[in-house]
């Protein structure tokens, strides 16, 4: 054995560590990939070894390789193994690796839930810290839901180090599990006033992130933030840095200006020249910022000027990225808020055309879409646009230098479409048609070719119309011939779309040619093919179509086959019956009348359909009458300007024209005003005609008729559909001021319920607990209440105190009623309705939350309340009666939730679904036990956690049980020097701090002032779990009064039942069946007589008290499963008939099984 260890260690000496790996990679520069692949092979070998140290080393190396770009997801399971190591060194390596390479779709993540929970509750703060850090990187919705509550608890951890991490990670949890936001928010708010600045800044951080997305929900925090701002000492070394970066100041200045711009646009506009200068800066970041500013600065007045400057920059700019950026900015600036700043669309079109001269831009499609948009929506501009586009098409060869990679050819798409669609405005359609059918077009991208073909057809119809109108029919026939000659080129295209359209149109043209040869006039009919006007449809239109009444897409079309029917026979019958139905008889006889009728119906339907594009004869007329047309200036082509695209006007001319126009207008206005002044001689309404004209004075050159986007007729008005539904932050748009509803409470881990058990008097006592020492969940409101009362309470005498408390309780009661902020259930509920004392004299316990997944999820937690004070004072009883009714209501709700949670988790879900709803609600249950008390102190204790062995089943550590003990001071004196000691048995031992002897006690690391309670955690090591354990113990402490101090002690008995070693583990029925078949399990059975409860109560009780989960339930028979912390399987088959319940059980450890069955029997004998 020892030799083996030595051999192992010597072997390990030859393993590479991270440094060796890095060194090796550096030494193999030329064949790095090969070297790394051998390293990965070595790592795979190392991962196969049992030694966790070797594994950790391998995982550490993998983390490095991951950074170099190697996929290491295959080692995910090994990473989980290393994470679950008990040593911090390895744990840290594991979590680092996980944070680097785990993500939501990593399937092993679900294995980590319990491990992480264990680490979160570890007594070592760095274990917790490292788990939080790791979790922040790979948290999934499932993890967030399961761990939200543990993290919430950590937010009030005693160590600020943990607190700040827990606060920060809450943001991630909110993102993944938005339901947790409302319950967690009060505590988050509390953390804004945390004594530790680190925690404070973490809370500010989280709330800022939250508020940034949905600011309106956080307005109420503004005063708090202001206070923080004025009082905070967390000084960033701003001035020092600012001095270092002058350049930076410029950047920040621009950034600040853009912020100002949003609120005070006027003040920034005066700095226009300065900002334009920034465009010349050599720093690209500054130029981009300046561009952003310009975007907000434009107005009707200065748009042309600014764009002209930008165009100059476009020409100058080297480097395509910046040029592209400029281009998009120009388009953004011009098109912002529905083109509101553009006064002259001809100018805009020519700007767009000029932009097409840019080589190698990626934004051809952007220009194209702008062209289309403007041409469609601004009717007045169409003639001009069509002319421009025709020129573009003619000169297409200039644009398509190196075709495929050049994005600018996208423009041709727009050009072709505009020419085709508005072909009636073309001066020379024949020429354009020829341009579109040039052989070179075949080199364009497929989608553009398709548009070419389609629009060639449209043009063809126009040409036909004009040619048929004018005498000779030969011209028309020649046109058809041209089409027939050229189209085959497209028919051969590899692009399906092109091919399809081309062959369709080719056939059409051939048919037309035939008709033409018979001298039939076809032009009218051909153009009828393309009649009608296209209107833009609003992007939201589809979404706004209201759902027709009575349409339910989720409803079954046919009744689903009922489940009760036997599965074997049913399908055949269905097929046999249905087959004949599918015959094609339908399509055979449709007579003429029927056809006509349908056509009519369709027309009717189309008339009513808002999306159907109707031919509207009026729209053309509207255009003709549009008053803007006369204003179109005649474009002079200045031949001195070097034009790359011949025949295209320069946008600059429009600037001049615009100036002239405005001057003229101004002159007109002056004249008018003079007239007016002559008429009205009063000086009251005098205008500053010398000053700059106001925005409204600039009239657009065209009467621009921007066609508004179409919406369905009965669209519902809403403003929130701009948001991306996939935006994770949208889910966090939650009203935080609303009181919490029951259903919103977080899934709570069971030990939280300590609070639940308290009687009102205890509650009063606990109120003096400082928040940092009290790990229990409390609403902020309650706390504030407490603070107020605290001082008063102390001063008053005892009797008065009682009264006060009474009052206070009522207040609190109100609070709970109005704002059910947390799962606090007053214990009156419990004591009144107790029906279920368990073996150790338990009080009834109501599971506090609906979503609680205690039984299946938090499998490791068990209640073992050793002691609960049962003090009955008169006023308490009165109150109970008063509020009984109200509570019963509450309770019902809760029971129901409680029940649901049983059926919620994993395995039993499928079984109980559907059936549970109508069964009666479960009675409340609890595992509380009463032990002892004295007049000084009260101890409450719960077994929190089993430290389960490593995933691979390493048992050498034995099993650990963590017991959390709450000490509560009941007297008026200070309790100190508390020492907790138990008599170790052979089997179970208290883990004592290093260096202390086997009989030393555990010194409780705090003192208790009057009325305060605090919690300590003790770890027990248990060797064998097959027998229940009892341990005797003593708590010694000193009661210190003002004048004297007394030494006191309290004896107690710690009882670990066999049940407490069981972990609720979900098990699927197939795995369960295999387990039973395997034959390794010993059998045993027990019979319970006179059990008066519904079967599902019985099951729930076994689940709850004995940590089983239901595998399958059929009528009055159910199989259940659980696992011990040392991996023993325990299977139960529970059958009921009348009042007799028989339980057959199988387990691989007969003693354990016997004890568990005895305990089950005991549970039921007591009810």
């Amino acid at each position, binding site marked *: 054995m020892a030799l083996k260890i030595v051999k192992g260690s010597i072997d390990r000496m030859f393993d590479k560590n991270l*440094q060796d790996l*890095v060194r090796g990679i550096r030494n193999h520069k030329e064949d790095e990939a090969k070297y790394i692949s051998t390293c990965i092979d070595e790592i795979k070998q190392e991962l196969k070894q049992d*030694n966790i*140290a070797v594994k950790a080393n391998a995982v550490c190396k993998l983390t490095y390789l991951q950074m170099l770009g190697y996929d290491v997801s295959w080692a995910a399971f090994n990473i989980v193994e290393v994470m679950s190591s008990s040593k911090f060194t390895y744990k840290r390596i594991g979590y680092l690796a996980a944070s680097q390479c785990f993500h939501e779709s990593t399937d092993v993540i679900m294995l980590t839930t319990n491990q992480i929970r264990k680490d979160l509750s570890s007594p070592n703060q760095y274990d917790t810290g490292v788990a939080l850090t790791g979790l922040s990187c790979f948290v999934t919705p499932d993890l967030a839901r399961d761990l939200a509550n543990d993290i919430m608890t950590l937010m009030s951890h005693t160590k600020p180090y943990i607190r700040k991490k827990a606060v920060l990670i809450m943001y991630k949890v909110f993102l993944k599990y938005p339901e947790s936001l409302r319950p967690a928010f009060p505590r988050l708010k509390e953390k804004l006033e945390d004594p530790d600045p680190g925690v404070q800044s973490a809370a500010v951080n989280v709330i800022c992130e939250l508020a940034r997305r949905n600011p309106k929900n956080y307005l109420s925090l503004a005063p708090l933030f202001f206070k923080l701002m004025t009082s905070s000492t967390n000084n960033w070394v701003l001035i020092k840095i600012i001095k270092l970066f002058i*350049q930076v100041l410029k950047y920040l200045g621009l950034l600040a200006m853009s912020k100002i711009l949003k609120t005070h646009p006027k003040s920034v506009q005066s700095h226009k020249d300065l900002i334009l200068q920034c465009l010349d800066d050599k720093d690209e*970041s500054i130029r981009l910022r300046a561009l952003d500013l310009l975007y907000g600065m434009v107005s009707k007045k200065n748009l042309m000027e600014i764009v002209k400057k930008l165009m100059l920059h476009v020409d100058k700019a080297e480097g395509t990225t910046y040029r592209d950026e400029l281009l998009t900015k120009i388009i953004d600036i011009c098109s912002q808020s529905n083109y509101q700043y553009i006064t002259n669309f001809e100018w805009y079109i020519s700007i767009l055309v000029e932009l097409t001269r840019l080589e190698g831009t990626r934004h051809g499609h952007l220009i194209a879409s702008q062209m289309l948009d403007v041409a469609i929506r601004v009717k007045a501009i169409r003639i001009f646009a069509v002319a421009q586009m025709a020129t573009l098409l003619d000169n297409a060869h200039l644009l398509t230098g190196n075709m495929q990679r050049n994005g600018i050819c996208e423009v041709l798409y727009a050009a072709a479409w505009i020419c085709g669609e508005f072909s009636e405005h073309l001066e020379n359609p024949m020429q354009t048609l020829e341009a579109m059918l040039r052989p070179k077009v075949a080199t364009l991208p497929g989608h553009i070719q398709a548009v070419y073909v389609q629009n060639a057809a449209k043009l063809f119809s126009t040409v036909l119309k004009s040619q048929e109108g004018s005498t000779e029919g030969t011209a028309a026939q020649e046109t058809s011939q041209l089409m027939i000659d050229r189209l085959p080129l497209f028919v051969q295209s590899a692009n399906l779309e092109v091919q399809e359209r081309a062959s369709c149109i080719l056939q059409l043209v051939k048919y037309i040619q035939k008709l033409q040869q018979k001298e039939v006039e076809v032009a009218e009919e051909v153009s009828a093919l393309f009649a009608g006007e296209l209107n833009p449809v609003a992007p939201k239109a589809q979404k706004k179509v209201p759902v027709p009444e009575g349409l339910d897409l989720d409803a079954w079309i046919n009744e689903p086959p009922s489940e009760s029917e036997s599965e074997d026979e049913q399908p055949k019958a269905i097929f046999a019956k249905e087959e004949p139905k599918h015959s094609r008889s339908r399509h055979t006889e449709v007579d003429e009348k029927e056809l006509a009728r349908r056509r009519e119906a369709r027309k009717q339907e189309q008339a009513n359909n808002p999306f159907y594009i109707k031919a509207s004869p009026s729209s053309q007329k509207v255009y003709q009458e549009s008053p803007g047309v006369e204003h179109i200036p005649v474009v002079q082509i200045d031949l001195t300007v070097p034009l790359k695209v011949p025949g295209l006007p320069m946008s600059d001319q429009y600037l001049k024209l615009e100036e002239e126009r405005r001057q003229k207008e101004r002159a007109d206005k002056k004249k008018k005003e003079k007239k007016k002044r002559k008429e009205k001689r009063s000086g009251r309404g005098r205008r500053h005609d010398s000053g700059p004209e106001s925005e409204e004075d600039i009239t657009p050159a065209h009467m621009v008729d921007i066609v508004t986007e179409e919406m369905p007729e009965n669209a519902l008005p809403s403003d929130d559909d701009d948001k991306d539904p996939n935006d994770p932050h949208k889910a966090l748009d939650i009203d935080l001021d609303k009181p919490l509803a029951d259903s919103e409470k977080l899934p709570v881990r069971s030990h939280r319920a300590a609070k639940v058990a308290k009687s009102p008097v205890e509650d009063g006592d606990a109120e003096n607990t400082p928040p940092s020492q009290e790990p229990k969940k409390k609403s902020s409101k309650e706390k504030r209440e407490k603070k107020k009362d605290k001082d008063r309470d102390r001063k008053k005498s005892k009797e008065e105190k009682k009264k006060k408390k009474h009052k206070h309780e009522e207040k609190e009661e109100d609070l709970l009623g109005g704002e059910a902020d947390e799962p606090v259930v007053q214990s009156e509920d419990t004591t009144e309705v107790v029906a279920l004392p368990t073996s150790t004299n338990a009080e009834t316990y109501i599971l506090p939350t609906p979503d609680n997944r205690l039984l299946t999820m938090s499998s490791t937690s068990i209640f073992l309340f050793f002691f609960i004070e049962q003090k009955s004072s008169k006023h308490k009883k009165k109150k109970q009666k008063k509020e009984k009714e109200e509570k019963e209501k509450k309770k019902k709700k809760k029971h129901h939730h409680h029940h649901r949670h049983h059926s919620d988790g994993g395995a039993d879900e499928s079984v109980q679904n559907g059936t549970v709803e109508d069964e009666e609600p479960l009675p409340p249950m609890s595992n509380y036990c009463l032990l002892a008390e004295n007049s000084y102190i009260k101890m409450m204790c719960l077994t929190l956690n089993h430290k389960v062995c490593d995933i691979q089943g390493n048992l050498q550590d034995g099993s650990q049980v963590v017991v959390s003990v709450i000490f509560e001071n009941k007297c008026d004196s200070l309790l100190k020097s508390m020492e907790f000691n138990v008599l170790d048995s052979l089997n179970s031992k208290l883990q004592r701090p290093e260096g202390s002897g086997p009989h030393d006690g555990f010194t409780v690391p705090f003192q208790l002032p009057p009325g305060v309670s605090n919690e300590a955690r003790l770890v027990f090591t248990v060797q064998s779990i097959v027998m229940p354990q009892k341990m005797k113990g003593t708590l010694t402490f000193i009661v210190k009064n003002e004048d004297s101090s007394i030494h006191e002690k309290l004896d107690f008995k710690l009882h670990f039942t066999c049940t407490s070693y069981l972990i609720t583990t979900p098990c699927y029925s197939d795995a369960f069946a295999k387990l039973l078949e395997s034959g390794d399990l010993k059998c045993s059975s027990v019979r319970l007589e006179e059990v008066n409860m519904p079967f599902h109560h019985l099951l729930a009780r076994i689940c709850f008290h004995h940590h089983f989960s239901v595998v399958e339930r059929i009528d009055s028979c159910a199989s259940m499963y659980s696992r011990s912390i040392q991996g023993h399987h325990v299977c139960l088959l529970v059958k009921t008939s009348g009042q007799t319940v028989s339980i057959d059980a199988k387990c691989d450890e007969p003693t354990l099984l016997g004890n568990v069955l005895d305990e089950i029997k005991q549970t039921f004998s007591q009810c």
Partner: protein
Amino acid sequence: MIRAILIFNNHGKPRLSKFYEHYTEDTEQQIIRETFHLVSKRDENVCNFLEGGMLIGGSDYKLIYRHYATLYFVFCVDSSESELGILDLIQVFVETLDKCFENVCELDLIFHVDKVHNILAEMVMGGMVLETNMNEIIMQVDAQNKMEKSEVSRACVCFLCVGLDWSCCMQYAGMCVCCTLHATLSLSLSFSLSLCMCALLLGILLLLPLPLLLFLPSFLPSCCCCCCSPHGPGHYTSTYFFLFPPHC
């Protein structure tokens, strides 16, 4: 929120990459390359902010970087982070590295990327700034390192290793080899006797002629030799360890 933290050298070799958003390994490499191209072509005297590359999310994200000697420290952040704040954070990060590594240089980052990650984890968590106070960060990092060492030293009890920097033993699987020897010996002998045996063994080894020594090394704690130590040659001056060079 911080989306990514990248450290690469003047040639674009990644020295640390931390993404707070999931990308595939390939995309991560492309992002590093892209960021390097964006950052490296900028002059020294221009500002430290620029817009993010296409891969990381375009202009909604800012790259905030600082250039120290051979290394670029780049933080990719969204609009909620203050530029100056992040610049300051980089400074704090670098100063912390400097304190933890004692005159940090690129080599430290190359060989101890895990430690750099651990330090970073104390500053930034899940993309949010956790702590900006350098003393606090160093305190927490030190405390954790101490814990690691204590875990190792529990295993290392033999006097051969006493007084040495444990990290040299630790890197070989968490337990020093000579301690294992020691443990074997102490199985049969009492503790003090086994110590004596160890001493004797060492004495014999030192007295043995050199050729025999060269034959023995595979059984000896050669991991302690100077060349294998993470701090490079010259860190351990003790003469024993020059005797066992076969690992280098």
